[in-house]
């Protein structure tokens, strides 16, 4: 017997893609949990000064490796009362003969107040305030200590430093992923867009096309190019002069370094603008630049072969001479005759492969050795971000390349090209927006890798260094004290727990976003 199927034909509101995605995301309990945990962590990092009872670098040498301060809830008569701590001092326990922090409530009881006046700090580095979550007048007068989660080797409060460290550990992932994304988008979109469309790389001098190429630009462009080259020389000189006289003598100050970095960026941008607007228009200048580049390569090769040949003998010298001759001959041939077309895709993807060929950890380690020892923490942070993203941009570039490869064949991209849009415009306006949803997921899932990378480096003592804090650095204290003393101070492992939670939360969030942004799942 046939039954009529009740169809649910209630009209659905038209929802935009992101509204649908939001609905899907809200259905994912683990993703919501991850987002909540991350929110708490980032708020904690933002309000670290408020949460911590002590300033970041405050250390109590007498209280190194002090265990978590006991918090009492009952007064001497056993009645519930406002939580309080007792006076404590460091002395030798006459039973075990170990130096211990001994709490003695007879010497003073100090109730913990909330939202109290503490040591002054600047919120966000700007607003001066002294409001802290926990403490009391006794904390400022140093009559008793409040170490919720114990102290490290210098006697610094771990609870507070967890939140100070969160500032670095949690933001480094975001900054590094942003930088890796910039490199990855640039390389990946070029690679994908030009895949299978070789670009002319060089034309030999004797090739008729070379002369046709040079004649292809009007005479006044050569003058502009000459002006551009002079400007570039002036710019490079100015940058070098500025570095020598203003930046280098004062490298320890963050403001000087920031100024230097800004100068470098502005200089490079200017260089690019001059190169593109003035020099590149003149084919003659391009050919000259190209020739000098080849001359440079030939010179490098010559030095190598000559030096090698001089310091070796016998068969080795003969083979070296032969190889050198063949290579120099090849350069000469390339310079003279053929037209060489290269696939940018091949070059970029080979570069990615080279980076992927060295194990990530080892590449990170040898790169981190490049960071000078004496730089201020802020610069070290930037440099750690840079090497993390340098090692890891390849994966993102591959993802973007595969997406761009698909999208560039779509009708809308073809149409834009047919309408006469330039390559840059097609890539930026038409192709890249199609990769956004995919990228959001890829980025969310990449951040935990960067967090782990930073904590690993800092754990080895090669990443963030004292006096700055990061979770990996704090965790390295657990081992620095020797393994046997290990079970006596388990609180030194707490930073590891925070790394674990942050990574877990990001993984959950990424999974949730992947499901939410997948248009195939129904709302």
């Amino acid at each position: 017997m046939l039954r009529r199927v009740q169809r649910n034909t209630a009209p659905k509101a038209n929802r935009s893609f992101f509204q649908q995605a939001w609905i899907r995301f809200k259905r994912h309990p683990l993703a919501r949990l991850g987002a909540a945990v991350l929110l708490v962590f980032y708020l904690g990092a933002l309000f670290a000064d408020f949460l911590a009872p002590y300033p970041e670098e405050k250390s109590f040498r007498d209280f190194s490796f002090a265990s978590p301060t006991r918090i009492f809830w009952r007064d001497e008569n056993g009645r519930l009362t406002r939580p309080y701590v007792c006076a404590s001092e460091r002395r030798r326990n006459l039973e075990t003969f170990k130096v211990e922090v001994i709490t003695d409530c007879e010497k003073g009881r100090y109730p913990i107040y909330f939202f109290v006046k503490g040591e002054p700090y600047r919120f966000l580095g700007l607003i001066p305030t002294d409001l802290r979550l926990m403490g009391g007048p006794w904390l400022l007068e140093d009559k008793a200590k409040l170490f919720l989660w114990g102290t490290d080797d210098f006697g610094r409060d771990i609870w507070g430093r967890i939140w100070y460290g969160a500032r670095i550990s949690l933001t480094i992932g975001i900054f590094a992923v942003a930088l890796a994304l910039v490199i990855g988008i640039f390389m990946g979109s070029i690679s994908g867009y030009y895949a299978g469309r070789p670009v002319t790389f060089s034309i030999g001098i004797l090739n008729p096309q070379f002369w046709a190429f040079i004649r292809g630009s009007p005479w006044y462009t050569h003058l502009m190019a000459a002006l551009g080259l002079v400007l570039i020389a002036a710019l490079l000189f100015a940058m070098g002069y500025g570095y020598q006289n203003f930046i280098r003598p004062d490298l320890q100050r963050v403001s000087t370094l920031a100024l230097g970095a800004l100068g470098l960026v502005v200089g490079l941008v200017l260089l690019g603008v001059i190169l593109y607007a003035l020099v590149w228009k003149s084919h003659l200048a391009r050919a000259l630049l190209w020739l000098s580049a080849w001359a440079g390569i030939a010179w490098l090769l010559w030095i190598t072969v000559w030096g090698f040949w001089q310091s070796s003998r016998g068969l080795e010298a003969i083979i070296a001479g032969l190889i050198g001759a063949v290579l120099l001959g090849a350069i000469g041939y390339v310079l003279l005759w053929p037209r060489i077309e290269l696939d940018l895709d091949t070059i970029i993807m080979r570069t990615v492969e080279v980076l992927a060929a060295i194990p990530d950890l080892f590449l990170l380690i040898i790169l981190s050795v490049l960071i000078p020892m004496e730089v201020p923490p802020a610069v070290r942070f930037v440099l750690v971000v840079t090497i993390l993203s340098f090692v890891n941009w390849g994966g993102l570039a591959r993802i973007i390349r595969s997406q761009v490869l698909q999208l560039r064949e779509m009708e809308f991209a073809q149409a834009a090209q047919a309408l006469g849009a330039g390559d840059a415009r097609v890539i930026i306006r038409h192709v890249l927006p199609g990769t956004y949803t995919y990228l959001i997921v890829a980025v969310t899932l990449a951040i935990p890798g960067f967090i782990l990378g930073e904590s690993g480096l800092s754990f080895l003592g090669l990443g963030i260094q004292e006096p700055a804090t990061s979770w990996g650095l704090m965790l390295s204290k657990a081992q620095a004290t020797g393994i046997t003393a290990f079970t006596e101070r388990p609180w030194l492992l707490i930073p590891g727990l925070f790394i674990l939670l942050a990574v877990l939360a990001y993984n959950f969030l990424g999974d949730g976003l992947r499901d939410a942004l997948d248009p195939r799942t129904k709302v």
Partner: protein
Amino acid sequence: MFAYVVRRLLQLIPTFFGATLLAFLVIQLAPGDFVTRLELDPTQDRESIANLRQQLGLDQPLPVQYAKWLSGILQGYLGLSLSYKTDVWNVIGQRILNSMVLVVLATLMIYLIAIPIGVYSAIRKYTWPDRTFTVLAFLGLAIPNFFFGLIMLFLAVWLNDLTDMRILPIGGMTTEFIHLGNLTRAAQLLFPFALLGTLVFAGLFWQRSRRGQAATFGIWVGLVLFGMSTLLMLAPLLQGPGLPERLPYTESPLWARATNVLWHAFPVVIVVGTSGLAGLMRVMRGQMLDVLSQDYIRTARAKGLSERVVIYKHALRNAVIPFIAGIGGLLPGLIGGAGLVEVTMAWPGITPALLEAISAIDIYVIMGLITITTVLLMIGNVVSDLLLAWVDPRIRYS
């Protein structure tokens, strides 16, 4: 296929040059060289320092140094360790072997555990064991392995304190003295059980094969595990009673040294393998679920095949394909992943050697370590590509 293999191998050459050149440049760009430290020493005059630098070839231009090093590599010579004054291979060979012990054992562990659990989770999806495994897999993927290593050490110290015995090792790869007497007594105690287990599983195996049935996975695992342990116990049983109660590590017989290293490796391997295990478990579950929803599985069930045959013969064999290919990728992946654990748990492997060489600026040792791991990694990738092409007839390479 042949053309594909050749092309894939040829592609390795520029990658190798590029990777070593990059590593060499980065190492040389770092401030100072091996001799720099001597310059701070007031007893050394400038001339002898310059001589030393010339002797070690550190005064030549970078490209020449790289070419020299490269020509050595092509002749199979890794260069001279500056701090040990010997062939680099003598310095790093043992370290690489030590790391390989970890990597091979971790790979074995990952495959032996991930596949059965993945299959089980897929068949019983959304039951509580599956959910437990899912949670564990998420934790395993998220835990930084150096933190896990610390926890493992913590556990070992705590357990040893609690029982007043050395149940788990606390870091390192070997102990200075091996208690042969303890090992022998343990072997005498456990041997009957191992033999019994072997006989039981062999009996099961024989019974099934007489009925014309293939042995199950469980029988295979039991037979191999019990059989291996029986064989391993033979040496201490035969040789042990005649030996002194305890001997230095270097003078102990091979079986005692192997046992010692394996005992030390046990917690390290667990730590190293965890994230790979968690990842592969999830992949296996996904693959299996994918395959189980295919039409031919429904056909197989519809024609009345038993669930066992459907799962093990029709589904598993297709689902496991990416895993066979993954072996090549897993080995080198673990080399890097084991790094921080080696440092944490004091395993004398590649990464501690690299850190030592870096602090001494012993460039050729650094280069040697990086080159060998790079080569291993590239070979691993090629092997996994080729295995994939060989195992899966659906993949064709033009």
